[in-house]
């Protein structure tokens, strides 16, 4: 879709944190000093071997890296096409790739002398990861979460509270991730002098999209080494789900220069094509500014941000990380969507063929794998980033799939 603004009148893009025309900083002035402080602190930390060594140690000994690259033999035989590998980010401590970024930013916050941490969460995985890191580092933690997401992700709310975090319900708008981000930004604007905002995905104002991507780059770096070791060549395609897009950009980044490796991002197709029925920004959105960054946004003809729907709380977001917008426009990555129905089928398929229960978010990537693997040759290799595990979704899965528990024997 054409840009909402013509190149001649497009917003300035010589500032840092740009991915093509996307990204930038569109925030209240109050936050600018904090963003500049954060940018400088991050650049210094990145260049500091001590910081990198501590992060690497925690990733290995606390979070559980290196995660396996598992050959899904039964799924491969069943689908009868490409060889399928699963990158097992679901095996990380707290159950998703989100711990990579939360550890990185948590250490950065400590380095900056901040003791009050705020975060937003959709499915709760980023909230749990942040609460975990705050417990580990002895910091106060407040997590904003939409009421709708609190309802559908109750297990993660309980985990956060047990870890000592305060979960603040957000009742505005769609009561989902977008509204939780608004509230976290409001808190940050108010308490900017002593508060660190651990943003959970590769979006928001610069330096967040770059920083969150960097903390998740480890996913793609490991995939690259592991597949070369196992197969002696690079994969045909890497598939990852895209909400904000942190696990996807982390998985893709090590392959950007390898033009033969297809990079496939899978958005939430929800329950239909109409505005408000899905969260497929590259299918129904157009460029705009939401929550500090210029990227694709699902919006109406007047520039009002539209509501979204997905069976997975973590993909239920009206915008997408700006680096994905740039990868989309230049064609380096492909973006498709999987609807709720196929996603639920993918959960069952992976559970029964491999004994792995994926998060509903990750099941979007699995659904695309199931769709394209049979069309590919036996020598093709698909790597699916299994960004998280499905325990948190058991309530939804039981309801949607009509699985009976203790009360229904």
């Amino acid at each position, binding site marked *: 879709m054409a840009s909402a603004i013509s190149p001649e009148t497009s917003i300035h893009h010589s500032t840092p944190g740009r991915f093509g025309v996307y990204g930038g900083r569109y925030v*209240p002035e109050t936050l600018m000093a904090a963003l500049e402080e954060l940018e400088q602190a991050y650049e210094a930390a990145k260049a500091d071997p001590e910081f990198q060594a501590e992060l690497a140690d925690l990733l290995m000994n606390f979070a559980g890296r290196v995660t396996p690259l598992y050959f899904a033999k039964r799924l491969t035989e069943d689908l009868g096409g490409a060889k399928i590998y699963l990158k097992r980010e679901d095996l990380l401590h707290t159950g998703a790739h989100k711990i990579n970024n939360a550890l990185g930013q948590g250490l950065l916050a400590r380095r900056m002398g901040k003791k009050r941490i705020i975060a937003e969460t959709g499915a709760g995985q980023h909230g749990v990861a942040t609460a975990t890191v705050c417990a580990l580092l002895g910091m106060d933690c407040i997590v904003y979460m939409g009421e709708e997401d609190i309802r559908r992700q109750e297990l993660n709310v309980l985990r956060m509270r047990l870890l000592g975090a305060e979960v603040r319900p957000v009742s505005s708008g769609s009561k989902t991730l977008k509204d939780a981000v608004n509230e976290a930004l409001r808190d940050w604007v108010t308490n900017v002098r002593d508060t660190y905002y651990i943003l959970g995905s590769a979006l928001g104002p610069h330096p967040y999209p770059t920083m969150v991507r960097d903390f998740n780059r480890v996913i793609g770096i490991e995939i690259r080494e592991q597949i070369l070791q196992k197969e002696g060549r690079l994969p045909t395609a890497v598939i990852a789900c895209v909400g904000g897009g942190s696990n996807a950009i982390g998985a893709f980044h090590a392959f950007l220069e390898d033009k033969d490796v297809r990079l496939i991002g899978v958005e939430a197709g929800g329950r239909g094509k109409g505005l408000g029925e899905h969260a497929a920004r590259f299918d129904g959105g157009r460029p*705009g*500014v939401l929550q500090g960054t210029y990227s694709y946004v699902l919006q109406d003809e007047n520039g009002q941000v539209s509501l979204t729907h997905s069976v997975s709380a973590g993909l239920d977001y009206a915008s997408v990380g700006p680096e994905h917008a740039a990868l989309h426009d230049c064609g380096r990555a492909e973006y498709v969507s999987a609807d709720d129905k196929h996603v639920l089928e993918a959960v069952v398929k992976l559970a029964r063929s491999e004994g792995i229960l994926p998060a509903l978010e990750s099941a979007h990537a699995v659904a695309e794998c199931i769709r394209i693997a049979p069309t590919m040759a036996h020598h093709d290799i698909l790597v699916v980033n299994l960004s998280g595990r499905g325990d948190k979704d058991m309530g939804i899965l039981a309801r949607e799939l009509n699985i009976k528990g203790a009360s229904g024997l």
Partner: protein
Amino acid sequence: MAIQFQQHPGLVVYLTAGDAGLQPKTSKPQGTGADLSATREIALAAIDAGADVIELGVPFSDPLADGPVIQRASERALARGTRLIDVLALAADLRKARPGAGLVIFSYLNPILSYGLARFADAAAAAGVDGVLLTDMIVEEAAEYIAEMKRVNLSPIFLAAPTSPDERLQAIASHSRGFIYAISRTGITGRQQNIASDAAQLVGRIRRWTKLPIAVGFGISNADHVAQVADFADAAVIGSAIVELIEQSTEEQAPGAVARFIKGLRQFHAVQAL
């Protein structure tokens, strides 16, 4: 036209365009745009009661710099179908009715981008608006926006925050026209008990870089606050307090209630003398 503050301190009044409080009249037939006649009546009453500048707020779905009062007003205005073009039409109407009043369009960036930056600049100029203030547009990102404003001879008004270091204040001062909006404290819009000493310090720091009038906003809700602002700044911005008053009034009562409130804002010294 240059924005003028007739008295000291000047008064800038923020209204969410399209918000008529909780009891809207029956709206116009569909397809003819939102009915902004209630906002028109309130704006006229505010001007006649002594407001120097009216900030017409464009309602937005995700007003992340605003507190609950203005967020609710935005939701009401959007529920009535208010669009940017309706706000521009209202501005043109107000300009005709009150040629001397200051008129500023106050918006988040996305509705403006969606409409088209150049198209918006032309339309705002044609409507007779004096200036534009975009909450989430910082000076570093604003090159094209500033160029468009300059092209049509409108004032880009930037916000300055207590957290802005001096080099940022200098950039803000050099790119602003009309007046500079100094935020009295860190935080979102809404009432507060006292105007922080932050505000006086900030205004003093901005003064070093500009001769433009400086208006202080965020949390100013009574005559006491306005009197405090008068000691160190050129104007006070009243937002949430008036929006809250509108929320609590019927559509018929709102213009009178707003007019009485604005007249009362300059009464501090008289009240103190009693």
